[in-house]
């Protein structure tokens, strides 16, 4: 079997599993919407303040909602023996790890990107700022899924793995948060967001090569 087929095979299976567990699948995006909408209620309807802090709020909530579904990313495959069957196949573990991260992004990252312009308008952001925020999320959320996959693999079989994932992965996600929110602030200040977005892009390239590799090693250790 050609190696690209393992990616389509695994992604299709995981999407099908997600479609049969809709509550689990929709949880991250619902969390994102609810959490971001709580801030105006707590802070008060001061439009200028809201507009200023909106990018930061959206990025933090995106980060947290991506972490929400990580503990089951490899744990269920590990528990029911699917993971050992995947590892025994001749397919590269790099591609398996990449597929799992891609599926996680399709389920948690993509809906977030689609809904973020609406939330941006809710926070009275300018159109250009909304566009920058969305572009930033488009580049940044795959990083969260890739690093999250690594965290999930590292904490496989560990008790209280969910909390440990947060402790391991959140610090690594800080650059994405800073540059993602920074890009929108730059637009607000009348500057070009290109430098910030380029840095996120560079980080995305780095993690898409490095994270699946590290995830593969972590999975090998977890199964041994």
């Amino acid at each position, binding site marked *: *079997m050609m190696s690209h*087929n*393992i990616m389509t*095979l695994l992604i299709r*299976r995981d999407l*099908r*599993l997600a479609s*049969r*567990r809709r509550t689990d699948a929709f949880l991250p995006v619902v969390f994102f919407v609810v959490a971001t909408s709580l801030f105006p209620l707590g802070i008060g309807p001061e439009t200028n303040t809201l507009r200023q802090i909106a990018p930061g709020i959206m990025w933090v909530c995106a980060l947290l909602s991506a972490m929400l579904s990580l503990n089951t990313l490899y744990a*269920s495959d590990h*528990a*029911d*023996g*699917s993971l*050992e*069957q*995947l*590892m*025994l*196949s*001749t*397919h590269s573990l790099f591609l398996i790890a990449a597929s799992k991260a891609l599926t996680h992004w399709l389920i948690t990252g993509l809906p977030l990107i689609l809904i973020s312009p609406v939330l941006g308008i809710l926070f009275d952001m300018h159109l250009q700022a909304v566009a920058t925020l969305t572009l930033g999320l488009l580049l940044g959320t795959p990083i969260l899924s890739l690093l999250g996959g690594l965290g999930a693999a590292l904490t496989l079989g560990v008790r209280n793995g969910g909390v440990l994932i947060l402790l391991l992965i959140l610090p690594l996600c800080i650059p994405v948060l800073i540059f993602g929110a920074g890009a929108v602030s730059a637009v607000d200040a009348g500057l070009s967001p290109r430098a910030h977005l380029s840095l996120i892009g560079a980080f995305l390239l780095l993690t898409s090569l490095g994270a699946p590799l590290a995830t593969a090693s972590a999975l090998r250790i977890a*199964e*041994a």
Partner: protein
Amino acid sequence: MLALDMTFNPAPTTLLQASELALQRGDAWLFKNLSFHVSSGQILWLRGQNGRGKTSLLRVLVGLAQPERGTLAWSNSNLANESSSKAVYIGHANGLKDELTVLESLQFLARVHGHTLTQTVALAALRHLHIDHCCNRLVRTLSQGQQRRVALARLALETTPNLWVLDEPFDTLDAEGVRIVNHLLSEHLARQGSVVLTSHIPLELMNTKVQQLNLDEVNR
């Protein structure tokens, strides 16, 4: 050697040679110097009390775990081809997803291991294990024994004389299931395939002498 392999020869060729394996769990040694071989057409029954390292040894054989010392040498005659896995391993966990149907689960497993599986072939394998009437049910709605049958249906798909590594295959099966699996094992051995398994119930195979390796007796 090569000439012998090319002609069909009922004399067994060594498929897997394990030499001086040593395996540790925590601080305790499971075994320090274990050597054995598995030949084509041969079945090796690993025995031993709970906690003697039967499952660990099986996981080493298929490459999921690494031994502390020692080597595993595979003869690459007909099974180490690129596309399909070296051995068929069915462990304690069945490898089925709760939220997939029986048919989807079996097809996924077969595709992962490089077989293209049509629905007809998958159904035939399920029918072999007398579980085809459940083919469109979700795996989680099946009983433990039924799930085991679905996992073991993978064996009915196999046609090549490769190595089967089975961890307690009869676990949770009823008498009929045990008979079916024994029959599958006999068929596999008859086509010069090999089996390494653990089991707490004795095997009932046709025309085959069962080799035994008792981990209680190896020196630790």
